[in-house]
């Protein structure tokens, strides 16, 4: 791939041919404010917040403008600053001011952008505020949809289309009445939505927000325990509880994608019905017992049924190390090859 050199705000940077100005900037850690862009998706160029001035004459959107050798870009040109500040003011004037109780607070792209472009209370007070009042869609068990917070960046629509190919949602209506919608704006749970949550993680505001989300204290990188794809996950931990699962963007298998089970099906981990002590059946009922009691009984019984009177069924859900020891135990200790697992089911 050939390299080109462009200048952004006086700084010369090199970029790959075919990159957009925004990508080139981001690759060098330069921030150009934007709302509708997402690295996984094709650029849309709709929020108009990433406008820059090119070669001192043309206002263009950096997310769609391909780099060209010798190109000179200004992000601080007065005309550009005015357009993007007005644009962000328009969005904020159309957005509920409920930041403190908002799911996205602190993690909100709109907050970040508004701060960056210099939105002020005085500036905002000039505008007429008319927030759309559309009832929330709370039908999905894992996330809520709040259209009043939606900035119509279309990231969710493009995610559902370009990445998931599910197309549960699309733009509907037009102009100021535009909204992201299922057929007939029916509850999302009644659509073909597969609840993968890919749109939820990409929503720059809290128009799509996980239900009852808890911010984890720290994250642990691991592998999903459901199907054989082996998606990389980040288990969010708070105390001794898994409170969230995110896709691991660095994992080569899923590159961050997850399905509904992988992302939201984690509550079994801290489920109250988890077994926490050994149980021994006494008079037909299972009763709590100590490990010693249980192990003694097992050792005694297994010792009496060595050879082909014994069989072990390992599991396709436990680790390689677990499986290795179980087959070793069966073969080396119990003296039989009667070991299998549920691979076939």
């Amino acid at each position, binding site marked *: 791939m050939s390299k080109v050199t462009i200048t952004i705000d006086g700084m010369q940077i090199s970029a790959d041919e075919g990159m957009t100005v925004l990508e080139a900037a981001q690759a060098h850690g330069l921030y150009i404010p934007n709302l509708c862009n997402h690295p996984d998706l094709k650029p849309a160029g709709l929020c108009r917040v990433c406008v820059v001035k090119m070669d001192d004459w043309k206002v263009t959107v950096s997310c769609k403008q391909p780099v060209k050798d010798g190109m000179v870009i200004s992000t601080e040109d007065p005309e550009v600053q005015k357009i993007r500040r007005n644009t962000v003011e328009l969005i904020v004037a159309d957005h509920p001011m409920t930041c403190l109780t908002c799911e996205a607070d602190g993690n909100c792209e709109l907050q970040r952008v508004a701060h960056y472009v210099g939105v002020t209370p005085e500036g905002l007070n000039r505008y007429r505020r008319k927030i759309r009042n559309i009832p929330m869609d709370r039908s999905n068990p894992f996330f809520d949809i709040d259209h009043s917070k939606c900035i119509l960046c279309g990231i969710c629509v493009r995610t559902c289309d370009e990445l998931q190919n599910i197309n549960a949602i699309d733009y509907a209506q037009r102009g100021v009445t535009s909204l992201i919608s299922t*057929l007939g704006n029916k509850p999302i749970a009644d*659509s073909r939505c597969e609840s993968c949550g890919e749109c939820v993680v990409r929503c720059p505001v809290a128009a799509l927000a996980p239900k009852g989300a808890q911010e984890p204290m720290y994250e642990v990188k691991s592998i999903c325990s459901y199907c054989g794809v082996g998606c990389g996950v980040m288990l969010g931990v708070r105390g001794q509880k898994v409170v969230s699962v995110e896709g691991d963007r660095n994992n080569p298998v899923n590159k961050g994608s997850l399905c509904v089970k992988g992302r939201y099906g984690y509550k079994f981990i801290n489920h109250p019905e988890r077994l926490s002590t050994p149980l021994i059946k006494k008079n037909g009922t299972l009763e709590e017992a100590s490990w010693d009691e249980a192990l003694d009984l097992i050792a005694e019984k297994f010792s009496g049924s060595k050879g082909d009177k014994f069989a072990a069924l390992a599991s396709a859900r436990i680790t390689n190390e677990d499986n290795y020891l179980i087959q070793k135990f069966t073969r080396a200790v119990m003296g039989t090859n009667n070991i299998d697992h549920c691979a076939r089911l």
Partner: protein
Amino acid sequence: MEERLSAVLSPYEGRKDALIPMLQKVQEELGYLSEEAMLLIARTTGMPESHVYGVATFYAQFYFSRRGKNQTKICSGTACHVKGAARVKDAFERELGISCGSTSADYEHSLETVACVGSCALAPVVVVNEDVHGQVQTGKIDKILEQSIKD
């Protein structure tokens, strides 16, 4: 109903580019686009239903609920506007007892404003059912309705 619509849609089987003509045909058949009809179009074309809905709601021509027997369209083109279309609209709203964009409870009347009908020289213009009425005066709308509404 599925059969009725299938007959209308059959020439377009598998044609993704014919979505708008299909919606027009279905609306011609039903008077509006029901959810069931849009689902059927999605199935016929292999398009996601959200997309069918997205396209249909983009265009002003399509309706999503049953319409009145009589349809009154008040032209809101520029020429009509400067010649008092807003007053004509208010007068029709009062006369029919419904607001623009709605249908009366007995499904007798639907009232809406439309972008220019291209009869600007006759402004202000009102179209009742198929009849174009030009140079409408607010004091005479009862006569217009009388002339054009269906029994």
